[in-house]
């Protein structure tokens, strides 16, 4: 459990954006792992199994939560395209030179906090793609939405996250009003 608890918790915390819910989900994941202890203890793919179960349980949790609060949640759904655009200082710069030079711990905190600010319908596919390295098609299947919608949500999520990171000084870019 020691070897995998951070991985399981991270997966749940990034997807839910809520540490208390992530801890509950991580607990369920390890209880399920205990039920399959005989197969898992000698399996080289135990880590993958735990990651898959953590992702599945988190998505189930979010889907239950979404159903319960569907009406209220959709009232504040905000996909507005009229937000100011992000402009990088120089288009030729490599990603390395756009990312501000700050220490790793501070960078992690900034990224995690910024992720939490994204709405769920953007954060979940973004985390699945960039953190869990899941292909678009698998994300669409997991979330039961169309492939174009997944791509659009992730694209919008990237733009929203980049704006938040730029405002907080992690990206050397400016938010400009067109």
């Amino acid at each position, binding site marked *: *459990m020691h070897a995998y608890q951070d991985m399981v*918790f991270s997966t749940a915390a990034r997807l839910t954006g809520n540490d208390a819910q992530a801890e509950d989900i991580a607990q369920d994941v390890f209880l399920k792992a205990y039920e399959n202890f005989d197969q898992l203890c000698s399996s080289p793919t135990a880590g993958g199994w735990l990651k898959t179960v953590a992702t599945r349980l988190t998505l189930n949790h979010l889907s239950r939560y979404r159903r319960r609060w569907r009406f209220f949640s959709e009232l504040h759904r905000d996909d507005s395209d009229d937000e100011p655009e*992000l402009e990088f200082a120089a288009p030729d710069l490599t*990603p390395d030179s756009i990312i501000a030079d700050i220490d790793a711990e501070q960078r992690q905190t900034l990224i995690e906090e910024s992720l939490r600010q994204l709405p769920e319908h953007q954060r979940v596919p973004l985390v699945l793609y960039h*953190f869990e390295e899941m292909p678009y098609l698998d994300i669409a299947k997991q979330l039961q939405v169309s492939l174009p919608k997944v791509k659009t949500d992730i694209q919008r999520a*990237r*733009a929203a996250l980049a704006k938040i990171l730029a405002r907080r000084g992690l990206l050397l870019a400016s938010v400009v009003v067109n």
Partner: protein
Amino acid sequence: MSNDPEKLESLLGELVRGQPLRRAPASLEARVLAQLALQQAPMPWWLRGFTHWPLAARAAFLIASYGFVRLAIAGVMSLVAFVGSRDFAGTAISWVHVGTETLSAVASLGSILVHTIPPAWLYGAAAFGFVLYALLFGLGTVAYRTLYVQR
């Protein structure tokens, strides 16, 4: 080059790559172990199957069940006997009479009230109720969005 999707993708890929895992709370392990201990604790006999009960408990249960069945049969038999008697018919008719009288009185009172109150007042009360409902619903929504939803 603003909002270039490819650039954003590679930028975020770069940012996320090598991002360390979040540290799990110290309480997680203790919670899991406590839950496992709870699941593995032996269940008390009364929560287990009948065959796992102590002999005395099984005997007491059978005796109590026999007594209950006897009591139920005696109850049904006496009920049948009472229904067949003349007393029951008289009692039942009087109860039905009282019930219909009460209902009729309540209906008359309601009818008088409805005819006494002007229709405008009734419509106004209905509209007021609807507005109050909408207001409370709106307040609930605003409270949920501002206090509960994490953005």
